[in-house]
């Protein structure tokens, strides 16, 4: 899943290199290379057991290795190596049971019965059973744990009951059609209940799960050392192998600087890097030793939200004008070197229920001008910006420098330049994360771009339901376009509780159509999640439901 076919040229050069190598080695491929868009053709060979994979992460170093605490992407990345989830997604993107064996729901949608798989143990020897899962949910729902993502995902669970060792009954306060998708997220991964009884500090340092690797040690600002779980049992047989992982160990390093990360990959000091920048992806495509895995994150697409709660975007035609005034495609092409396909949906392309509406987002300055004239912004001042009743058509755009990569910041600057031609004065403010949130909490923005990762279309409720305009005690609210539309709320509520998959799909499509046609957001591209890796590292490509790579089937060629 989530796997985008590499560009034809890249595939060809990789294939050519392999063919040449095989000829030189005096042998021919036994069978035609598989076609499926995987790089299996270049990954021919017998898996080798052993070796330490060095992974270099550009994400922030987690402050806690247990993704129950907090709950962000850096935690998900590393935790996917040692923790497993009740559900996951298979290679085709379908939700499948993993640590859970099965699940049923009552007619009214309020009683969810989970069947837990037998024969699986945590790496500390504790057996996986219904009570263990209950202990995890309790841990997540305990305010002391300070869980954010996991806490929200389980918010509808009212009570739990262990029926027997393999059966757990959950009583919900309202039906939740996205519960199983929530169970597939690493922030709701299942940990050893014995280990959870330790202090939070101890559990943060070395959480205990059922995954193919386990945490051996963590040297802050340097690396998390993971070693193979020799007794690993894969809950569901996949195309790969049985038993333990091929790799002896993984050294999970933190290298914040993108150029250093790429240099370390080039020099062979590390075998895989995340957060690969567009220019290095383009450079890597020219080599034969470095390969590319593009695994867009699920949940929302990366988008610019238009704050509809205040002038000038409380006028829908001004929102529409802005969207036609910016030339997004040309800028994305030039700044992202063709690595980021344009999105026209509120949802990631990794989401099966994503609905796109390309026709709404054409660059059309003439139409923008027409709309602005009609909306009363017909005058222009000396600098060429539009004015109405003596007020300039100004848009404030706070940008978080820790969430927007340089290419994205340049994209925003180019959008600012094209919007100026139509008379918009876009004021970009580059801010650190805290100050950026500060501007949002004060409602001091017209445009904003914020990532949001969650499995499944229910992320739409997080982002566009009017309930999400009400700030949490910390000041945080997720509905940044501040849409308050009762008919949209009704669509999202019904979609969130229906048991009928076809109805769910239809309702979520209608909801997406509504926000797109209301010009509440400008979709840009999927959340960028690019990995570059050495050709010596074979069988990369398997990812979890949130597109973090897993290395159970991977091996290091000599």
């Amino acid at each position: 899943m989530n796997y985008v076919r590499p560009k034809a040229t890249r595939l060809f050069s990789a294939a050519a290199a392999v063919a040449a190598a095989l000829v030189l080695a005096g042998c021919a491929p036994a069978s035609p290379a598989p076609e499926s868009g995987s790089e299996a053709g270049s990954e021919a060979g017998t898996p080798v057991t052993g070796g330490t994979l060095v992974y270099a992460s550009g994400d922030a170093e987690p402050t806690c290795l247990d993704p129950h605490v907090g709950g962000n992407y850096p935690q998900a990345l590393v935790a996917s190596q040692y923790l497993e989830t009740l559900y996951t997604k298979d290679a085709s993107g379908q939700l499948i049971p993993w640590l859970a064996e099965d699940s049923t729901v009552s007619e009214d949608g309020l009683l969810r019965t989970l069947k837990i798989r037998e024969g699986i143990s945590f790496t500390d020897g504790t057996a996986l059973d219904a009570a263990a899962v209950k202990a995890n949910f309790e841990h997540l729902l305990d305010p002391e744990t300070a869980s954010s993502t996991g806490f929200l995902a389980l918010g509808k669970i009212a009570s739990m009951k262990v029926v027997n060792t393999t059966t757990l009954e959950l009583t919900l306060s309202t039906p939740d059609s996205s519960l199983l998708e929530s169970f597939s997220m690493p922030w709701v991964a299942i940990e050893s209940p014995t280990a959870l009884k330790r202090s939070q500090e101890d559990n943060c340092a070395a959480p205990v799960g059922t995954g193919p690797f386990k945490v051996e040690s963590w040297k802050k600002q340097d690396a998390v050392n993971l070693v193979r779980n020799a007794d690993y049992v894969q809950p569901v047989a996949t195309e790969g192998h049985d038993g333990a992982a091929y790799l002896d160990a993984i050294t999970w390093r933190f290298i914040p600087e993108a150029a250093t990360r790429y240099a370390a990959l080039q020099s062979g000091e590390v075998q895989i890097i995340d957060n690969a920048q567009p220019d290095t992806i383009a450079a890597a495509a020219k080599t034969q030793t470095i390969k590319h895995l593009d695994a867009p994150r699920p949940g929302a697409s990366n988008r610019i939200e238009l704050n509809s709660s205040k002038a000038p975007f409380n006028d829908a035609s001004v929102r529409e004008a802005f969207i036609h005034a910016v030339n997004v495609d040309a800028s994305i092409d030039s700044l992202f070197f063709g690595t980021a396909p344009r999105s026209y949906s509120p949802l990631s392309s990794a989401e099966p229920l994503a609905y796109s509406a390309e026709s709404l987002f054409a660059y059309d300055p003439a139409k923008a001008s027409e709309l602005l004239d009609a909306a009363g912004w017909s005058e222009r001042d000396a600098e060429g910006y539009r004015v109405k009743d003596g007020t300039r058509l100004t848009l404030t755009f706070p940008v978080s420098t820790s969430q927007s990569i340089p290419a994205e910041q340049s994209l925003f600057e180019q959008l600012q330049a094209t919007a100026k031609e139509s008379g918009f004065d876009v004021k970009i403010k580059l801010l650190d994360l805290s100050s950026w949130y500060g501007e949002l909490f004060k409602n001091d923005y017209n445009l904003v771009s914020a990532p949001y990762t969650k499995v499944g279309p229910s992320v739409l409720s997080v982002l566009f339901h009017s309930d999400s305009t009400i700030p949490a005690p910390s000041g945080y609210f997720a509905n940044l376009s501040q849409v308050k539309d009762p008919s949209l709320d009704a669509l999202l509520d019904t979609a969130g509780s229906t048991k009928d998959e076809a109805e769910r799909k239809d309702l979520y499509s209608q909801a997406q159509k509504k926000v797109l046609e209301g010009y509440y957001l400008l979709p840009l591209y999927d959340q960028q999640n690019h990995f570059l890796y050495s050709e010596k590292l074979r069988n990369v490509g398997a990812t979890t439901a949130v597109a973090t790579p897993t290395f159970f089937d991977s091996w290091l060629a000599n």
Partner: protein
Amino acid sequence: MSTSTIARQRLAPILGRTARWVLGKLGGGIFVLWAVATAIFFGIRMIPGDPAEAIMGGPGSQASAEALAAARAEYGLDQPLYVQYFSQLWRLATGDMGTSYSLKTPVAEVLGELIPPTLVLAVLALVVAWALALVLAVISTRSGAVGTAIASGLEIVSAAVPHFWLASVLIMLFATALGWLPPVSTSTPAGLVLPVITLALPLAGFLGQVMRDTMARAQRSAFALSARARGESEIGVLLRHSLRHAALPGIALSGWAFGSLLSGAVVVESIFARPGLGRSLLSAVTARDIPLVTGVALISAAAYVVIMALSDIAERLADPRIQAS
């Protein structure tokens, strides 16, 4: 009058001066530390948002009201600001630097782990910078106008080079193109080479400029002339007399240089992925981790104060004239 009385009478003013000097340094140091703690305390609170969010995993956390309240109470954030300020000063004065919000470990423990790598980096960089500056100064003084011009050009360029740029160039050259050295600072000594050079080069340029000027002036001075008249060789004059003069401004600048090395460490440690104070300061500021930011800043300030005092002492030892003044 016995000789010991005379000695005491002669020694007394010197001891008094030394005591005054020590007390002055100590007082100045304490003042600097207090100013830093105060500036950090109020500075960080000017950033919009609630420190309790930082404790709960960042400003975007969707922590519940109860959890936020619990965090506030636990870290004393529910107290009036002046109470928080004075209680923090009191804790700091008694050596308690608190617990890091983001790492949930005592700041003293975090610093204990991060000071050694940064200290190694800074001290090595200072030593290398000194060596480079001295060699450059001696060679250029020995090789006439052309040599001086070349050395001066080199010094100006290297003094002006930003760490960020230099590090990138060194990585591209020695790690990517030549493959001689690792681009990330691993636990091996080889990993230290590029970070140390990145920090040392600009500093060497700066020190070299000052030292070479002083050395050239010393070479033309009366004592150099008299030494030559006594039959001292040219190289002997340079090493035995002029070098000592040239070292003086270098020593005086080393205190300042050490401070600049600590700020350079923020960049260098991030680029070369090296654990240390600089890198943790960066992440602590981003995470609004007030205790950790305060701890790193205080340690840096304390190091600065101590190094300044040491360079003062070294200067007095190298040049007795300073004591008289």
